[in-house]
């Protein structure tokens, strides 16, 4: 799932400063699940902007809408009437959603209200951790299902580094587990420790074509 974080109000206020009427647009998928861009956060942000602008003596009107997936053109079209009413759109979706909105409503500026941060999972209620770097060349088969590219602070393919702390913690952040210790323990459980002896040559990140495209094989 895509995880995002709300931008600071100061930045959002700056973005909204030329406008008197805006649409706060949420997305009902990933960003709802990570508590940052669903219907609730849309209501909170709309209210907060109004309060902020009112404190500046420069009132703003907000409309609110949340679509199921902002990265789908068909779904975004559902709110075209509301978009028509406003001067600008403030999107709480991930970068993909913001771009879909921007493409669908080319005459309106669409601004991001969140920073899209990573692909991750909830560790517990309200805490999300990064799990996947979308590198385009999955390595998890060799590492017991633990990705060293994002879970190792140095992104080492051949770990651990020399800095592992006591108790299997990372030298850069003692709060975090050393990914390579986790990998070792997992492979040990599976009787596949021989994989630790393999050398993996550096990934050629430059070979990743931008922008990425995935074509389904079946029609």
């Amino acid at each position: 799932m895509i995880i995002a974080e709300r931008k600071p109000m100061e930045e959002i206020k700056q973005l909204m400063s030329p406008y008197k009427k805006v649409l706060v647009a949420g997305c009902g998928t990933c960003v709802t699940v990570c508590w940052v861009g669903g219907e609730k956060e849309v209501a909170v942000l709309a209210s907060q902007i109004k309060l902020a602008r009112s404190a500046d003596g420069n009132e703003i009107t907000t409309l609110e809408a949340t679509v199921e997936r902002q990265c789908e053109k068909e779904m975004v079209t559902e709110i075209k009437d509301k978009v028509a009413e406003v001067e600008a759109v403030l999107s709480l979706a991930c970068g993909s959603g913001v771009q879909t909105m921007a493409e669908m409503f080319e005459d309106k500026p669409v601004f991001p209200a969140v920073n899209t941060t990573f692909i991750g999972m909830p560790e517990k209620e309200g805490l999300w951790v990064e799990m996947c770097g979308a590198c385009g060349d999955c390595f998890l088969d060799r590492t017991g299902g633990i990705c060293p590219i994002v879970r190792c602070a140095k992104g080492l393919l051949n770990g651990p580094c020399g800095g592992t702390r006591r108790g299997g913690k990372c030298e850069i952040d003692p709060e975090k587990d050393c990914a390579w210790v986790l990998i070792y323990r997992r492979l040990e459980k599976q009787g596949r420790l021989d994989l630790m002896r393999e050398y993996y040559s550096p990934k050629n990140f430059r070979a990743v074509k931008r922008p990425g495209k995935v074509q389904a094989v079946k029609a």
Partner: protein
Amino acid sequence: MESKIGVFLCNCGGVINNIDFDAAVKKVTKFPGVTCVNLSSNLCLEEGREKMISCIREENIERVVATCSPEFNEHIFREVLEKAGLNGHLLSMANIREQCSWAHDGNVTMKAVELVKMAINRVWLLQPIEKKELPVSREVLVVGGGFTAISTALQLSRVGLRTTLLEKEAVLGTRAEELESFYGFDTSAMISSVEGDENVEVLTSAEMTEVVGKIGDFSVRIRKGEEEIFRKYGAIILATGYQTELALAPEPRLRAEEEAIYGINIVSQEQFCSMLRNSSLETQPKTIGFMFDFSDGNSRFPTLATLNNALAAKKKWGSEIYVFYKSVKVDSEGMEKLYQEARNCGVVFIKSDITPRITGESGRVTIEAKDVFLGEDIMVACDVLVAEELYLPGEGTEKLSSLLNIRVDSRSFYQDENVHLYPVTSEKKGIFLIGECRGDLDLGRVLTDISSVVMNVHGLLSLGQIQVEVERVKADPQKCVTCLTCIRVCPHGAIQLIRADNSKEVAGISDLACDACGICAAICPARAIKFQGYRDEEILAQIEAIGESLNGHIVAFCCEHSAYPAADLAGRLRLHYPENLRIIRVPCAGQVDVFHILKAFEHGAATVLVLGCEDGACHHITGNTRAKERVRYCNMLLKEAKVDGRPVAMYNLSPNAPHKFVRAVNEITKIIEEYGR
């Protein structure tokens, strides 16, 4: 579509004398949707209720606003509505007595009218809640095989409920000997009668391995040896008791060759009991030492055991007895008398502030301590030392608590100090905790627990069905994004994934297990969960009504289990507070949503108060801590928006703390006044 609203004002037999009711009636009549306004002086009495019913029928009233405190009269007026043929939930109350007339000096007609306006705004939006009978299993599972468990099973059998007694040991009553010697109980008779009871199934050497479901319908997997048993139960009672451990200070250690004296010269209370019962004991101890209350201060049981055993030893052997203690706490029935009796028999009590030093030499145990009263070091050599014991939760408590997802307290006993759960309920409906598994309870308290749980369980299951309110709290399957947040936060374990109409998996809230706190509704990121009566619309309608007539006011969200009754009590005690306070009643502070608070600011509130239960005593366990977190978050958002200088405040108070309520209001008022300057 507008409903016909009937407003029923009551001057409470003329007690409310600072509201001009004639003027109020005139004003309220003009509000849109109001069909009729009645003034009564005894709305809650039979005469007033009859009049209300006939008015509802004659005028075809569809929704009702009544004035009084909902704490007292909401249920009465709901019944009135039902008698008049309306759904009882189409009622909203305006508390013009405790929270208006009695809380302020001078004429408060305007405020009373505004409170009625708030209730009218809300009543428009209310939706009926139907009731339904749901079947429940009449079988009860009692975990444990001691006195508490056996007595409970016997009493449940007597009221006609079938019970399974689940004991992990091979036999029942392994600790019964202690009871026999302390209280003279014939436990063997109890055990044989429970084994012969046709309403009780005894499963020994067995343990619970899985529990799913909810009150009325728990599915339990039990392992007994190689055998696996599946059963359905309506309720689960934990009576897993306690265990003891010798609490000897690790230093100074006895020398290695003398450690052998454990069990002979240094014994536990239980071992000492069996020495007392042993008529063929070779040598009777001439000098005996006891110790208690040095370790953790939880010394009710050790003290009781010491007093009993010291007296018995004195009577049987006439030994010299020295009791070392930090404090004697005699908070059980008959304990003071027991203590006096021991003193009168010649038992010597030595108070010491520091843990005595224990050493062993030539088969004797030496106890060295500093006598607080003499101010001198004291040394006693004993034949036997009955060492201090720690009372700990029964073996397997941790496993059971994670199996059932029930919290334990700081000492790992079940049920922490939450007044709303006392004495025997847990945060999960249908799971009860009785006896020593809740802490070191004496016999009197255990007996109270047993009666209490039998009454509770009988009330729940005896009819084979429970009446519930249908979908009072519900997740809209269309809006639910299956983020699992509500499942993770529900303090009552009432939410699980369901497949609605064979479509995607969504959050399903059990009407049986839900305790209606609204914590899930406030946290749902998709705003999919609706709590009837406290939906966003209904809360916002009240906030808007306040904003229409006031500016720079204070909105107080008051938990109905604590702050709301505290505010009522403040009124009853005629404790006054500023008139611009407007109270919105909520089922739990954890139901207050960040965006409700922001909306209050948008509608002109100077600030917002969130008032919930005391720390550690939230009726819904985590509601008040969540509220505190949300208030913190809200203040961050307000600061970001440069709405500062008047932060949202959270106070914790109990329902009997009217002064604290008034203090909170006054404190916040002062902050607002200073901000205004």
